[in-house]
Structures are given as structure tokens and as C-alpha cells.
């Protein structure tokens, strides 16, 4: 989500991105959260992609409002830099907080947060794409700055430092509907014991199935897939279940 001008006023809006680039405005974050709850999504992840200090107050108020209207687990991330940020988001209703750039720059934040709030509250968000040499690397600052980390190594390190979950996002596949990066997902799922959430590329219901069966992901996340197609989590779930993946069916 990001701050946008709609009509005469500025508000936080939910957006779809494509390879982390120009966004399409999709809706109001809390309204969309209520809809996803009604459609029995398992968890929600709110990411403030502007991640600027200016947005902090607005993001917190979105979290507060969401906590009043939705009754399911949700994670908040984007621009989280300190224990205070963690505390503020958790005390306003978030169940988990995700860190990305700050974790690379100050890895001890992972351990500190896990110790203070419990590892289950700490989600390590890893964005990756191929660099100029075709090598997969972790990128930070919304996919703008390359690091030397290979996503596999960083995932292993993140677990060692105490994170409770890993949100793995392929920047190259984000918003393309071309399918998940199954190879990378599998490598990381095999290497760590914390749950891995695979994200980036779902365009068909079968992509979800592949993510579970081939990629061995514990969870598959999608945004574009649900908001810009005649699809919803309940439909996807039915398809995934039929394919033999043990997933909860609401009815």
C-alpha cells in the first residue's frame, strides 16, 4: 500500500505492482482486508511500499482500523527500522511485523525483536532478483539497491538470528502472473525449518498448487492474482484442495 491522491484528498491505497514498478491503485486497505477475511484468506500481509517516515502515522492508523474490523492474523511491514517500530505496530493490532532493509543493515534487529516479542512475531522479508551477471541476489530499499547476499544464504542466516517466518518475494516475477520461482523456493524451503511464504508470480490457480507441491512452500501469497482477475481465495482454495494439497476448505 502507499499514499495516493484520490479526488481531493490523500489516503493510503492498496496497489498492485509489477516487478516492483509502477503501481495500479486497487482499493482501500481496510475495505480490501474485510473482503479477504470474508473470503477466508489465511493471513494478510500489509506492506507499505513507500516505506517513508512520513507514512508512519498513516500506516499505524490503517493498522488500528484493520484491527477493529478484521479478526484474522495479519502482518505489517515496510519501513520498519527499530524495536520501537515493532512495538508500535504490534500494540496497534498487528500480529507479526516484517523487516527487510533494516534486517540487512542491522541484523541484530532480528534477534532483538525475536527476544522481546517472540520469534513468531518476526517475519524476515527477502526480495530477490537476478543481478547484471544473472546471479540471484537480495535487493533492498524496495528492490532498488543490490546486496551481495544470495537469498538462500540470507534465509539461513535470518533463521539463525531468530526470525519466525520468511517471506520470499521474486522481484522478477512480481505482478507478471508467469508463475512462482519454484526452484528458488524449493532450495530455501529445504534449507530452513521456519515456514516459508512464497510470493511473486501467481497467475493461475495451478501456480499455487505448484508452490506447495513442487516448491514445498508452507504458504503462497498473492496480490495481483486476486485483485485483477475473476478470482478470490475461496475459489483458489477449492482448486488447490482438488489438486491434493491439504488446505482448509471453509465449507
Amino acid at each position, binding site marked *: 500500500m502507499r499514499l495516493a491522491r484520490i479526488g481531493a484528498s490523500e489516503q493510503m491505497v492498496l496497489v498492485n505492482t509489477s516487478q516492483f514498478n509502477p503501481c495500479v491503485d486497487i*482499493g482501500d486497505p481496510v475495505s480490501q482486508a474485510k473482503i479477504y477475511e470474508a473470503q477466508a484468506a489465511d493471513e494478510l500481509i500489509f506492506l507499505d511500499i513507500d516505506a517513508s517516515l512520513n507514512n508512519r502515522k498513516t500506516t499505524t492508523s490503517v493498522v488500528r482500523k484493520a484491527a477493529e474490523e478484521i479478526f484474522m492474523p495479519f502482518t505489517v511491514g515496510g519501513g520498519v527500522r527499530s524495536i520501537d517500530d515493532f512495538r508500535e505496530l504490534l500494540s496497534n493490532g498487528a500480529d507479526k511485523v516484517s523487516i527487510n532493509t533494516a534486517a540487512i543493515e542491522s541484523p541484530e534487529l532480528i534477534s532483538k525483536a525475536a527476544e522481546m516479542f517472540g520469534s513468531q512475531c518476526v517475519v524476515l522479508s527477502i526480495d530477490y532478483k537476478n543481478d547484471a551477471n544473472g546471479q540471484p541476489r537480495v535487493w533492498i530499499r524496495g528492490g532498488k539497491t543490490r546486496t551481495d547476499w544470495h537469498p538462500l544464504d540470507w534465509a539461513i542466516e535470518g533463521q539463525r538470528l531468530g526470525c519466525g517466518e520468511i517471506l520470499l518475494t521474486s522481484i522478477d516475477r512480481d505482478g507478471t502472473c508467469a508463475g512462482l520461482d519454484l526452484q528458488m523456493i524449493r532450495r530455501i524451503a529445504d534449507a530452513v525449518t521456519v515456514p516459508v511464504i512464497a510470493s511473486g508470480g501467481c497467475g493461475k490457480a495451478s501456480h499455487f498448487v505448484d508452490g506447495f507441491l513442487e516448491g514445498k512452500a508452507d504458504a503462497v501469497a498473492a496480490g495481483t492474482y486476486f485483485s485483477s482477475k475473476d478470482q478470490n481465495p475461496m475459489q483458489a482454495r477449492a482448486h488447490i484442495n482438488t489438486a491434493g494439497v491439504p488446505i482448509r476448505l471453509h*465449507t
Partner: protein
Amino acid sequence: MTELVRCTRCVLPQTHETITFDENGVCNICRQQEKKEEIKWDGKKKELGELIESYRGKYQYDCLVPFSGGKDSTWTLYYLMKEYGLKPLVVRFDHGFLRPVLQENAQKTFRHLGVDVHQFTPNWKIVRKLMLQSFLEKGDFCWHCHTGIFSYPMWVALRYNVPLIFWGEPSSEYTAYYSYDQPEEVDEKRFNRYINLGISAQDMRIRLGGDVDERDLMCFSYPPLKELRRINYRSVCLGSYIPWDVKKQTAIIQEELGWEGDQVEGVPPGYEYEKIECYMQGVRDYIKYIKRGYTRPSHLASLDIRNDRLQREEAMRMIKEHEGKRPPSLDLFLEFIGLTEKEFLEVAMSHVVSPHQFDPAKVADGVKLHDFTKWSRDGAMPREEAIVQLQRWGGRGETNR
């Protein structure tokens, strides 16, 4: 074209929303019907009586009945008045495409039964914008109708202080968003679950880039829960309390009210009681065929199979003969939303549900209906306006297939 896997009992295919198949290839919708047989309907009827008595006589109207004039809402109104002697407020949301026979049916019903009717027609210029936007976003142009039909009556309930609202058939006849043993309250949760296509009025305004006045979207937005609670509202399906039998119910309203069926584009003879309310129904069904590879005849046949009125082989023959024809109403639709047929196909095909594949070259033309010339062609979308929306959407529905 890939042959779709279909239920071994009815004929719904794997692309139907929420469908799953068990080890015998029988779909969950068929299995749900088994639960319908297990329901203790006597107990439900007793509950219905108690519910009604708790509201009767306490308000300006005993209940509110959202009404289209189709077989289900006509039956609902008739049943509540005949069986319980209620004084209802009938609320009708005009989606813009009401057909002549339907209007006559409604007139006959209102006069035979004697009811107050509140009818509302939303701003056409807003409606056509919404039709185009929801078609682009979701491959379903009926957002204004889905949302208006379910939220507008709730605003009326608030305004007139009529807290008991009766809808018709439960959704478990068609899909597995709810099952028969779950109480289906027709509330905001249900609205969000599958009525509004995952887009609230608030979200729609954002998707339109703020191009519409918030006030123009109010009739499509669900009222706040707090307000509904304040009047102690209950919004329920009559079909949760009495077993729904479409053929029997239709026969009764034909007999008692002079209700008449009508032809519908793409629907075989013998089903003239179904979906007669809207002259865009043919386009709606055609788009479904493009996206999911099946349409109205599959639905009708499946219902009949489950009620032991049709054999599966006959059903498959009927489907082959009647499904997937291009409806003449498409010409009007294209004018209303300002798209060319090529653009229309591109958009619809971008929403195809795998593994279905659609080949436009294989589509035959459908037949014009008897009232085709009476359908209004006024209010075509200016091309420049359509282009603004098309460009904003920018082909983001494109996928790798």
C-alpha cells in the same frame, strides 16, 4: 480446446467457482444437496414462524422484500403474504435492463397481492462507467447490479426502519461459498465473500481514479453494521427455512399470479422461468462461457439432474447444442461500454480460468429474442470516455498462458 473435467453426477465443470470433486468425481455442490435432504425442515419452518412473529406489527412494515420480478423474488413475496399474511415493503433496484414481460409480471404481482413498492433507478452515466470498469477488472460487468441489489434495500430498511429482510434462494443451490448447514445471513460478510466481486464501493472509487463523486456510489455500498444493528436487523434467505423447489414454485406463481416466463438468449426451450429479468443476460452468459467454458444450460441441467428431472446424457446433448453462441445483445453491450468487439474479446479472454481455452473462431451466432427491438439503446458511452478507462486499466490483466 481442452475438454473440461465435469462432475460425474451433474455436469458442472472444474472451472465452476468453488467446485471440488471427491474420489468418485462427484462435486461438492451435489454433495451439498445431500445435506439439504438431511435438514429437518419442520424445525426450520417453526424457526421461520418465530422469526416473523418477533417482528410482526411492530414497524411500518412487517418485513422488506427485495424484488426483481423473477421467479424467486415473486415466489418469496407471494409465499410470505399467503402463508403468513405479512405487510411487506417491496424494494426494487432497477439495474437498467428490465425486460417488458418482466415488467408486466411485476405489475400483475403487485396488483394481485396489493403491496407498497419502492423502486430506485441509479444514474445511468455512473452505471455504464461501472459496467466498463468491472468488466475490465473482473471480466464481469454486473458489479453495479450485484452490489445495488444487495446493498440498496439495506439503506431502505434503515430509512423506513424495517429491520426484517427476506431474500429468496440460498446460494448453496449454486456454489459452495456457504453450505446448507451453515446459517446464511445475507449480510456484509456475504456481500464481501462473493457478491461484490471483491470490490467495495470505496475500492471502486479508487479504481476509477477518484473520477466519481462518493455520493454517486452510495447505493452500491453496504451500510455500516452499527446502523443496521441499531434497528435490530435480520437479513435472511427464505430458502434457509423452506426447501427450494423451483419448478413447483414457478407453477404456483403462474397459476395464482399469472406470472409468465420468457425466452432468454442461449437458454434451451423448457426453461423459460430462469433469468428472465435482464436483457443483458445473454452477454453475461456469453462472457462466462468465454472465461469458464460453460454457461446457463450447464447450470440448469445440473439443477435438474440433482432433482431427478434429467439424465446426464441428455444434459450433455443439450449443452453441446445450446452453449457458447454469440448473443445479439452483445451489439448493445458494446455501445453501452464503448468498446469494439475485438477489445471486448481481448478483455474477456484475459480472464479465462485455466485449463479452459477459448477459440473465438468456433462461435456460432445466437438467435434474436422476440422483444429485441424493444430494448433501449439510449445512453451509449462516448468513445473518449471508454478510452480513459481502458488506458488506466492498461492491459494489466494480460497473462502468460
